[in-house]
C-alpha cells in the first residue's frame, strides 16, 4: 500500500498549485491570469484547466504586451485563447508610451516599462487576484515572496510587511483598490516545470527549442535584432543555433546556444546547466544585487 500512498514530487507540486487556484476561485470576485506565452504561464494555464475541469477556466488572461514580441509567441497566445474559449485582455506598453504614462528608455528595454500598464490594466478591469508564474527559485528576492502576496493600491510590494503564511490557509482579504498577486508555482524549480511539461505533453512556442536565428552578441548574451536596439555599431549579426530559456521583452531576452530540439533534450541541458535561467538570459537582472527586489517593490510581476 505504501507505494501508492506517497505522491511523487511532481504530483505534490501539481496538487498544491491546483489547491491554490481553487482557493482563488473560492475567495475572489475577479481573478485574472497573467499570460506571457512563456512556459511558466503556459503551465499555469494547464493547471487551471485541470483545477476546474469539466468546467471552463473561470477567469480571463491578461497579456502585458511590450510591443517587442516574438511572433511565434503571439501566434501561440492567440491559438490558445481560441482553442479554450478564453477571454484575453491586453495591456499595452506601446499605448502607455503613446499617451505619456511611461517614457521609452534610452537602452530600448521595455521590460521595466511593463509595470505601469500592468497596474493600469489591473485597476481598469478591477481585478482583485492576479496569478503570476513567478517561482521562488528564480531570484533571491522572489525566494521571500508569499504564495498570496498583498499589493497596495499602488501595486507595491513591501517585503517587510508580508503576511505570515501558515499551513495551507491563504489569507486573501484585501481592501478595495488593493489586490493580491498569487503564485501557484512558488515551489517549482525550472527543472520541475520542464519535467512537468514533458509528463503532461504541454505544447510550447517553438522558440523554446533549438532553431537557427540571426543574433548578435551583447554583454555575453545572444540578442535578436530589431528596430529597438540592435545591432549597434561594432555588434555583428550572425546566424547561430539557439533556443530561449525564458520569454520576455525581445530587446533584453537573450537566447542560449543550444541544439536541444525536444523536451528531453531541454531537460538534459537544463540539468547540466551551470547558469540560472535569469543569469543566462535576462539583462535587466544583472543591473544590481537588488534589481529584482526594486522592481517588485514598484509592482512588477
Amino acid at each position, binding site marked *: 500500500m505504501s507505494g501508492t500512498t506517497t505522491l511523487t514530487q511532481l504530483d*505534490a507540486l501539481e496538487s498544491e498549485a491546483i489547491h491554490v487556484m481553487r482557493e482563488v476561485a473560492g475567495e475572489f470576485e475577479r481573478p485574472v491570469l497573467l499570460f506571457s506565452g512563456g512556459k511558466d504561464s503556459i503551465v499555469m494555464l494547464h493547471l487551471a484547466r485541470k483545477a476546474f475541469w*469539466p*468546467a471552463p477556466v473561470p477567469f480571463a488572461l491578461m497579456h502585458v504586451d511590450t510591443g517587442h514580441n516574438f511572433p511565434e509567441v503571439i501566434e501561440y497566445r492567440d491559438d490558445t485563447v481560441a482553442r479554450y474559449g478564453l477571454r484575453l485582455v491586453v495591456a499595452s506598453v506601446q499605448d502607455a508610451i503613446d499617451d505619456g504614462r511611461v517614457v521609452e528608455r534610452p537602452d530600448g528595454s521595455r521590460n521595466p516599462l511593463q509595470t505601469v500598464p500592468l497596474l493600469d490594466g489591473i485597476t481598469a478591469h478591477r481585478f482583485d487576484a492576479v496569478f503570476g508564474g513567478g517561482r521562488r527559485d528564480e531570484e533571491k528576492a522572489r525566494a521571500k515572496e508569499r504564495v498570496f502576496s498583498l499589493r497596495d493600491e499602488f501595486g507595491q510590494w513591501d517585503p517587510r510587511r508580508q503576511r505570515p503564511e501558515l499551513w*495551507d490557509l491563504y489569507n486573501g482579504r484585501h481592501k478595495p483598490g488593493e489586490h493580491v498577486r498569487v503564485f501557484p508555482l512558488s515551489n517549482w524549480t525550472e527543472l520541475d516545470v520542464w519535467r512537468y511539461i514533458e509528463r503532461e505533453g504541454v505544447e510550447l512556442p517553438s522558440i523554446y527549442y533549438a532553431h537557427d536565428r540571426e543574433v548578435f552578441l551583447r554583454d555575453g548574451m545572444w540578442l535578436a535584432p530589431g528596430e529597438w536596439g540592435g545591432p549597434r555599431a561594432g555588434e555583428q549579426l550572425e546566424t547561430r543555433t539557439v533556443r530561449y530559456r525564458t520569454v520576455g521583452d525581445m530587446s533584453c531576452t537573450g537566447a542560449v546556444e543550444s541544439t536541444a530540439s525536444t523536451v528531453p533534450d531541454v531537460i538534459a541541458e537544463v540539468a547540466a546547466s551551470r547558469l540560472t535561467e535569469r543569469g543566462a538570459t535576462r539583462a535587466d537582472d544583472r543591473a544590481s544585487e537588488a534589481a529584482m527586489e526594486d522592481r517588485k517593490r514598484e509592482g512588477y510581476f
Partner: protein
Amino acid sequence: MTTTDHSQRDLLRLATAGSVDDGKSTLIGRLLYDTKSVLADQLAAVERATAARGGSDDAAPDLALLTDGLRAEREQGITIDVAYRYFSTARRAFVLADTPGHVQYTRNMVTGASTAELAIVLVDARKGVLEQTRRHATITALLGVPHVVLAVNKMDLVDFDEPTFRKIADEFAGYADLLGLQDVLAVPISALDGDNVVDRSARTPWYDGPTLLEHLESVPVLRDPTSEELRFPVQVVIRPRNAEHPDYRGYAGRIASGVVHVGDEVAVHPSGRTSTVVGIDTFDGPLDQAHAPQSVTLRLADDIDVARGDVIAPAAARIESGADLVGTVCWLAEKRSVLGARLLVRVGTRTVRALLREVDARLDVDTLQVDAWDSVDTLHAIDATDTSSDIPPRSLGLNAIGRVRLRLAEPVVLDEYGSHRRTGGFLLVDPADGTTLAAGMVGPTLLDALAPAPAAEADDGWLAGAGI
C-alpha cells in the same frame, strides 16, 4: 538521460531555525552547494559580494550570502523573513523554509514550522543548548513537526571532541522528552568545512550515524494516509452547466487527510447530512480511490446542500463541531489582542465571524513556564519585550503564545490539531484590514501539557541551569 530516475522522487518539506551566529545560512549554503543546487552565476555573485565585504580574493565564498535575499538582510547581516530554498538529490526533492532565529522573529519560525515534516535545530558546539535552542525546540513541538534534527555545528572549533557533542546531544534529548518530541537525531557537523553535511567526515570516527543529507533523504515524508480519517474541505463547487455537462455537480478540494473510495458513505459537516461518493474525478480521468494530499473533485449520490467551507468526512466518524473554539495561538501582528474583539476565524476553507472571549494562559517559550490568568484582574506575564506602559489585561503581543477562547458566529468542524495537523490549524484575521493576527491550533497543545507550571518547579532543576 536521467529523467525517468526522477519520476518517482518524492518531496520533503523542512524548516531550519537558527541565527547567523549558529551558522544556519552557511549550513543551507553548504546543502545547496554540495548538492550542486547553486549555479555558477549565483556563486560568482556570492564571490563578488564576499570580496566587496572585505574578504580577500582567495577567501572561501561566504555561503551565507546565498540565502539572504533582501537588501536589508544583506546590509544588516541578518535573516529577517522566511525564505524558501530548493535542492534535490536523485532520491528526493526538498523545499526548505529558512527562518530567522531571534525572538522577535518567532512568528516566522512558526510560519516555517507549520508545513514542515522535519525541523533542523542548530546549535554552536562551543555554546551548547541556549535559550534560543529551547525556543526553537518548543515551537517545533508546538507545531507538531514530526522529525527533528539537532545539528551540532562548528565541531571544527571544538576539535571534533566527542564528549562535547555527547553532552549537548544528551541535554537536548532531555529537553525533547519534556516537549514530547518523538524523533530526534543529533548530528555533529561543520557547515563551514562540510563535515557530515553531505559527505561523511573523517574527523568524527566516533560518530556512526547518518550524515545530515542521508537522514533528510530517508525520513518518511508523510504518515500513512490509510491510518488517518478522511477530511475533505470543499474549496469550490464545479458546475459547468454547458451542453456537454448539463447536470454535473462536483465538489473540488484537496484531501487534507486519509483516503476516499468510490462507494464510501460520507457526511458533510457541519450540517451532518450523509450521502455516498459516486465519483472521484480528475482532468486525467476518474479514480477508484484517492488519498492525501491529492486534489480531486468528488461527486455525491444525493443532491444535498454542499458549499465552500464544508468538510466531507466518513459517515461513521465522530466529528467535533461547534461554535466554541479553545486553542493555542501564536500572535503574529504588531497590534495586540483585545478581549472582546470581533475577528474572523479561518479554519479549513471556512471563514466565520468570532468574538475573542478570553485569553487565559500564556506560554514562555524560553522557560516553558505557563502563566495562567485566573481572573480578569490578574495582570502578570506580560510580554517582556513590550515597553508600552498601558498593556491591556490578558492580552497577547507580537510573538506571544497563549490560550484563547473564541465564540464563533456559526458552528465549524473542530479537529484537534494534535491528531489532525492538516485541519486543526486556524487563523485569526482582522476584519478591518485583513491582517493575519494570529495562527492557532484547535484543542489541547503543548501549552496545556505544560500548564500549570508552579513557579518553584521552573526556578530550579536543569532548565534554569542550562544555557546562557
